[in-house]
């Protein structure tokens, strides 16, 4: 008689409170392009247990279309898809406005020339199926760390006039504490961790309110407007928290020299 055991290895379990989760530096919004439903379910299960939020696409074109309105922290991409190949998806992303999206190829194609092709076309990493859970999580976190927008951040961030402490959940501006609600704090942290990055409304909602919360656009706009005022994220202060039509928001730190010129005028 043969016996094997399939266990969930020791990983952190998903926290119960979403606000705790959202504030956790390691939470990622992950897009999974995988046409095999079993594989997609397993990858989603593993990643959600580790506290990440997953969005599954079973066709490459569906992801490409979604990227017109959505942003993700990282993409898991299969090679063999029913419509277009994973390499074609990769090429199109690398020439799009989301060219910096970290991409991990997850495929059963194990030939050296396949690995080389994917990496040369701009994949950040390559894993051959069957994947192992802890290795997948480690590689995902590693490419996100190396990415343009670092996912893991220290508990205390100092950015320009802001000092953000995610442990005490406080934001100081010019050494004075800014009064923020819990949601406004989470929203502020999300923007300050992603300066210069265009975040979709879905991405913002999911990070701040949780993946299953129903939040209207108006509610989101109200919170954004409130933190813009409370934190002084305006051009006079060297910041711009700009809305992008039908997509989301981007926090930009304006060129300090232009800011100075503006002040001198």
């Amino acid at each position, binding site marked *: *008689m*043969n*016996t*094997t*055991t*399939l*266990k*969930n290895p020791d990983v952190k379990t998903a926290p119960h409170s979403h606000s705790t989760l959202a504030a956790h530096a390691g939470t990622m919004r992950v897009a999974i392009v995988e046409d*095999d*439903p*079993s*594989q997609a*379910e*397993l990858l989603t*299960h593993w990643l959600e247990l580790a506290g990440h939020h997953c969005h599954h696409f079973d066709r490459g074109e569906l992801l490409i279309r979604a990227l017109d309105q959505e942003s993700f922290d990282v993409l898991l991409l299969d090679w*063999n898809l029913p419509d277009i190949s994973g390499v074609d998806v990769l090429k199109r992303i690398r020439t799009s406005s989301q060219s910096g999206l970290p991409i991990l190829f997850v*495929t*059963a194609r194990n030939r050296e020339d396949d690995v080389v092709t994917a990496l040369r076309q701009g994949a950040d990493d390559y894993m051959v*199926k*069957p*994947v*192992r*859970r802890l290795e997948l999580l480690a590689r995902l976190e590693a490419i996100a760390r190396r990415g343009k927008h670092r996912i893991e951040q220290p508990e205390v961030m100092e950015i320009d006039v802001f000092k953000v402490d995610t442990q005490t959940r406080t934001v100081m501006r010019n050494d004075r504490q800014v009064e923020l609600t819990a949601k406004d704090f989470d929203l502020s942290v999300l923007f300050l961790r992603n300066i210069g990055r265009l975040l979709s409304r879905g991405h913002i909602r999911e990070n701040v309110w949780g993946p299953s919360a129903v939040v209207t656009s108006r509610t989101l706009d109200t919170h954004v407007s409130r933190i813009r005022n409370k934190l002084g994220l305006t051009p006079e202060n060297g910041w711009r928290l700009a809305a992008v039509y039908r997509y989301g928001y981007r926090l930009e730190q304006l060129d300090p020299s232009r800011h100075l010129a503006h002040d001198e005028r």
Partner: protein
Amino acid sequence: MSVLAGSNRSAKPMPPHIVKVDKDLEALVQRFLARKRDDLQRAREALAGGEFDTIRRIGHDLKGAGEAFGFPELSNFGAALQSAAVAHNEGVLIEQLEAMEQFMARLRITLDK
């Protein structure tokens, strides 16, 4: 304990192959095995119709998924099906599909406490 058993056409009594899974993975594993039983049937039909590319794709998916779900034997069957389909080797395909069916018939899933 929940038990999964497939059809068993083999005349030989074979020992069960027991796989223990965490409770939170049970539903996923059950769905995976049900899909693979469907794939096995599809592969037989494809072989009858000479559709080697269908078998290649089924083998490719199985190769990638089996071990991740705790069934390295299924990954091995997948690899064998894929390469035999590429080579249009009907004899090997018949053997591998039969062996895979027998293996799945022996599978028993139990919950790990």
